[in-house]
């Protein structure tokens, strides 16, 4: 028997030893070198630039594989999850500047400016904003001086990272601004809060406004001087533009005029002298527009290296259709989706006498009137963005353009200057304003205007002519009180499914603010829906 128990004891011993050593097998880290733990990432000085690149790329691509794959947003068709595509849909489809032929759920409702909290495109926009904010927060948390010192990041890299960090704060402010502008009463995520199961609480518009303002002011002097940063990255002028836009719309956001401050920051942009008008308007929207001195802050795309089904791929391919030859815009696709309503066309002289080069319409086979929004050939088409370069050569790919999107450009600053002056801001003058407006008009070969022509209504129209399809329109119409009102309508504004109001009508004031998406109301019970939804 002793022998038996000895054997048993030895066996048990072996079992326990094997067992214990194998328990360590449970501590694993990924064996695929494409994946790294957070700690390993931030120990590598080279990573800081790469994570920053993702914060920017969040505006352009939809995941870690182009044009689709490893998506950032789950549960939404990846092409529909693009930041820029969603922003464009929100800012353009409910206005006179665009109407889309597709029947994908949510699009007809945006066309009619008659949407609800189940609209998947609105949910996509919201999800994008709230993808950017936690990512930027994380980056800001991981790049404090204390952490950089602890990780013994070399001093020269630390100096770069301080600038990166300021840019991350700019990008966070940009997304908060989009959130404030589109959804107004939005969840605020405290920077110190990491990842976890909690319910971010809604901030008041005043709180969000104050946060964006204080952030931009805080980083103003940490950012690179205007025009001095690498192409694609934000500089001081980008932050100033954003501040100026925040102040310009303050009346809408917080019921308080901040027009003087708006003008102050616009002047900083203009007076920096770092930017100049692109001599040829058309060149602003071509495959080689990264060379333009007018663009203050772009979202960059590239046919080989920055691919997406959203962004510029969407903007160019979706606006080809009918008898248009896609190759004329450097692509193969004619998705037959987006064109404009007569509301935009009528801002231009539609006769043969028109000289305004900004009237980049395609009319062959297109009717001006839109009976059925689903027919691409109803409504004039647009050729503004193109994947050809100035020499007429196509970009690096025939589906995904090289063309960058000008999020902020100098012409916008000129128009904002004039608007601020007309709204009574101190620190500017009408003559300068007139000069800026005529500079834009002369560049486009349009007739110059006189001081008497320079009214707020003119500015709103001129903004459409100069900036259409550049994601400004909805905000502009709201600021001018014309988005919902019945005294300014365009075809299909407020129309019904039964097509009762093809010429347009007033819509409920609630539509000035988008509904919070129902899925987040479900996921975060602390949220209160925007009024009227």
């Amino acid at each position, binding site marked *: 028997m002793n*022998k038996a128990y000895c054997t048993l004891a030895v066996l*048990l011993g072996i*079992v326990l030893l*094997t067992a214990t050593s*194998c328990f360590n*097998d*449970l501590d*694993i880290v*990924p*064996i*695929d070198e*494409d*994946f*790294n733990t957070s700690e390993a990432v931030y120990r590598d000085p080279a*990573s800081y630039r*790469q*994570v920053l*690149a*993702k914060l920017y*790329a969040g505006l352009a691509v939809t995941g*870690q*594989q*182009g*044009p689709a794959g490893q998506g*950032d947003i789950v*549960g939404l068709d990846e092409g529909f999850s693009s930041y820029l595509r969603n922003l464009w849909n929100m800012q353009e489809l409910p206005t006179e500047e665009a109407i889309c032929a597709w*029947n*994908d759920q949510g699009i007809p409702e945006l066309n009619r400016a008659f949407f609800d909290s189940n609209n*998947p495109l609105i949910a*996509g926009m919201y*999800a994008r904003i709230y*993808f950017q904010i*936690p990512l930027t927060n*994380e980056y800001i948390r991981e790049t404090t001086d204390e952490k950089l010192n602890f990780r013994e990041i070399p001093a020269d890299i630390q100096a770069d990272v301080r600038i990166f960090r300021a840019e991350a704060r700019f990008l966070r402010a940009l997304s908060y601004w989009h959130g404030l502008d589109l959804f107004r009463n939005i*969840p605020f*995520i405290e920077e110190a809060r990491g*990842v*976890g199961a909690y*319910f971010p609480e809604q901030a008041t518009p005043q709180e969000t406004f104050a946060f964006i303002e204080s952030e931009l002011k805080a980083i103003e002097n940490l950012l690179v001087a205007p025009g001095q940063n*690498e192409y694609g990255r934000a500089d001081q002028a980008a932050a100033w533009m954003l501040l100026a836009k925040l102040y310009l719309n303050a009346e809408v956001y917080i019921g308080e005029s901040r027009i003087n401050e708006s003008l102050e920051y616009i002047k900083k942009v203009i007076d920096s002298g770092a930017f100049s008008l692109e001599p040829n308007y058309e060149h602003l929207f071509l495959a080689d527009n990264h060379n333009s001195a007018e663009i203050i802050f772009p979202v*960059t795309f*590239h046919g080989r290296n*920055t*691919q997406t089904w959203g962004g510029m791929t969407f903007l160019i391919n979706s606006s*080809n*259709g009918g008898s248009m*030859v896609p190759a004329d815009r450097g692509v*193969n696709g*004619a*998705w*037959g989706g987006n064109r404009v309503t007569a509301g935009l066309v009528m801002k231009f002289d539609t006769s043969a006498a028109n000289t305004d080069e900004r009237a980049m319409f395609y009319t062959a086979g297109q009717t001006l009137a839109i009976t059925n929004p*689903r027919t691409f050939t109803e409504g004039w088409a647009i050729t503004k963005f193109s994947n050809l370069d100035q020499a007429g050569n196509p970009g690096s790919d025939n589906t995904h353009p090289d063309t960058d999107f000008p999020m902020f450009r100098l012409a916008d600053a000129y128009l904002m200057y004039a608007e601020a002056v007309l709204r009574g801001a101190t620190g500017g003058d009408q003559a300068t304003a007139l000069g800026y407006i005529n500079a834009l008009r002369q560049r486009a070969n349009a007739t110059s205007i006189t001081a008497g022509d320079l009214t707020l209504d003119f500015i709103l129209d001129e903004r459409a002519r100069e900036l259409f399809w550049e994601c400004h329109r909805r905000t502009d119409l709201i600021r001018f009180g014309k988005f919902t009102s019945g005294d300014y309508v365009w075809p299909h504004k407020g129309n019904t499914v039964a097509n009762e109001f093809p010429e347009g009508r007033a819509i409920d004031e609630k539509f000035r603010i988008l509904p919070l998406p*129902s*899925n*987040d*109301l*479900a996921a*975060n*019970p602390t949220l209160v829906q925007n009024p009227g*939804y």
Partner: protein
Amino acid sequence: MVAQRTISGTVKDADTQEPLIGANILVVGTSTGTTTDINGAFQLDVPEGATALEVSYTGYTTKEVALTASNLIAVALSAGEDLDEILVIGYGEIKKEDATGAIQSVTSKDFNQGAITSAQDLVAGKIAGVNITPSTDPGGGAGITVRGLSSLRASNAPLIVIDGVPLETNNNGGSRNFLNIVNPNDIETFTVLKDASASAIYGSRASGGVILITTKKGKGSDKFRLNYNGNVSMNQVTRRIDVFDADEFRQLVLNKYGEGSVEASYLGDANTDWQSLIYQNAIGTDHNVNFSGGVKGLPYRASVGYTNKEGVLKTEKFERTTLALNLNPKFFDNTLQVNISSKAMFTRNRFADRGAVGTAVGFDPTQPVFADDSLSQAKYGGYFAYQNPQGNPLSLAPTNPVAMLNLRNDASNVQKYIINGSVDYRFPFLPELRANLNLGYDYFYGEGEVTASEQLAYAVEDTGSITNYWNSNENRLLEFYLNYVKDYGNLGKVDFMAGYSWQNFFFNNYSFSRNLTGNEVFSPEETFPREYYLVSLYSRLNYTWNDLLVTLTLRRDGSSRFSEQARWGLFPSAAAAYKVFDGRKGNFNSLKVRVGYGVTGQQDIGNGFSDLYPYLPLYDASQPNAQYQFGNQFVTTLRPRGYDANIQWEETATLNAGIDFGLLDNRIIGSLDYYLKNTNNLLNEIDVAAGSNFTNRIVTNVGSMTNSGVELSLQATPISNDRFSWEIGGNATYEQNEITQLIANTLDTNYLGVFTGGISGINNNIQIHSVGHPLATFFVYEQLYDDNGNPIEGAYSDLDGDGQGGVGNGDRYHSRNPNARWFFGINTRLTYDNWELSMSGRARVGNYIYNNIWSDRANYNALRGNTAFLSNLHREVLNIGFEQPQLLSDLYLQNGSFFRMDYITLSYFFPELGGVKNVKVFATVQNPITITNYPGLDPEVGGIDGSVYPRSRAFLIGLSGSL
């Protein structure tokens, strides 16, 4: 009367004359007993008045031996003829009458017969509480659930253990079904451990139940035997989606838009029935040869199987070869038993483009299949393709479904091996103790190539595409346990087992995708290795005292998926059974009462990257085509992934109470079980509150759910005589589930729940997991109807009273349940002389289906595509009459209850024919009858009916025989 004395004896196998070690000897009418030693010998002091000994051994028929004057007894036991009586359980086996848990087993003689390629189809409808949805494609996988769904996001599939090797149950790319490794003809038993007391020995992987499959083995005493069986089958599609034919469609478009309209100009002038062009009568054949016997006491069984089947969708093919070899030698006076089991599978697949099924439904029937203009000939292979004015493919238009099938080649070669060897050693000096070491290796490698011709419309612009991929999967298993069995006579019998298990799962994928000319890369070459580990300690105590049986198990599992704090789970169970009476004569022959409680776990949330490292904060690098430009440089980006640092085991506590009974001379035997399962820390993918994570959805532990049910199994032999016999078996299951909690620490009534069940459109979900409702309940608008009972488009009840119906979530209500409440299985066998007729069928009652084909295609708006093309509609549009899609209406919820006869087989048996023995010829019709009110193709689609691979009917003739 004889006074107390000592009996000595031996117990041997009646066939082989080999001693049986550890056989039980009991004095009848007492609890006095002993076990045999390694020589099969025993000595027992029998009390005064003893008349007989009962000798029993697992797997053998128990024998009662009358005591005579002699003190020497030699007992020969025969291997149990009725294998039903022996149940395979985790790490061992047990006599059925001694089982304390809800365990049900089906042996080869009771398997379904038909063109069965995959193991699970053998027992569809045969086991109460086990719900098997047979596959629709050749060799395809099937849904198997045991006692309903107990998880939301983690696997609901049972753990499958083949010959002691627990399998990784996630299918890999290129492979249709992981179970294809085992040829159905090689399977001996299919055992299901349903309740926690039976399955808790598998701890963390047992929440979905456990299925133990054992394969046939040779016996040392057998003479060489060779068996063949084979069949030829033909499958055909029985139903199609009801769409307009070309003339009706033309009229519909003209009526709708008018002559001369843009839409009318899109019409073609052909008459094409697209659905008839994509299906075929699919021929299949299946051959199996196996031989078994013993060479110098080395028992072996080897088999070769070959299956070649077409799918009913044109171009679908499946070809499989399986090899299996089992060797079971014994050494050192049988104290050392070695089982070597090896299986190999080689399949060649061609996958038809499933997209063609849905495309054929909607494709304009006025367009031709072929176009003979020179452009179409040159550019599109002669197939009709929608073109833009430049002759390029029309953006967003569908591709000709016939071209989709013929111009795309998606083929794979798969090999899989499972090799395991177990060594079972009984200590000569302590025969009560045995040690078992089991080493297993499970290897999968599948490689494939998908080419889309440069003439295929969707691939024309890229000049075609070619994707090469491979997937490999290696699982290693090491298990060791000790088992101690001792009969303490009056004090009862103890059977204690304790062991250790280690498993490593390693996955690697590769893919490379580019165009046919190779000048454009869509997805660069990439491999994707990843792994996880499971480490466990387990023990079980079976204690038998007279007619009382007690089982206690305890398992501790560690999974590398979870953080150090959350990694370990403890899974205990306890069960007791009492044999009220057993072997009694008369109307009531046996009755056993069982009750058990236990906890099982679940950690299998998949084998994707996020699923294997869900708690780690990780960053992933972008591909070269998702970089971002800084200056003149394109920077590879690093993205943080969403994660849940606190993710942990899902745990299911199960209470089970049941009875087993035998009536009327055991002509009726049956079991009745009640169970209640509470699952806590449910793993689910939920929308996170915006901004609280790096993703909008994450897998996390979210709540609790209960499942409860009643199962009844009956097996009856109403007639049994020399020429005629009739057996009938049936089972019925009632089950229900309810979600009881969804967010920790929140009883917020505003919280709707977790949306699920994606339907057409963007981001549309038709189902929801909500507290107080069954999981995945349909969450819809309440359709309003006019006086004639016709639905009014866009008119819904204003359930939240905000003045508008059909707006927001407030107007949605929890409607039907996608899961059936009632499940039935029935099978019967009639034999008359050498004829045999068998049938097997299943029914489900109470399951509802969202008919996404109707909601998508039964509205006039769907006539027009996004660009210059038209799409066919479901004919139901004539009744519904909607202009716009009304996706969230409850109009589309339809009752999917059904009865389906799965198999009818008629066979004739020749004991000998031309020197061949046991010749059987048979004919089977598979899926001959379906009774349902569901108007779609298949009531078994489950939940949401989009475009499905149709379920076919098969006709089969076959032959078997042996030498």
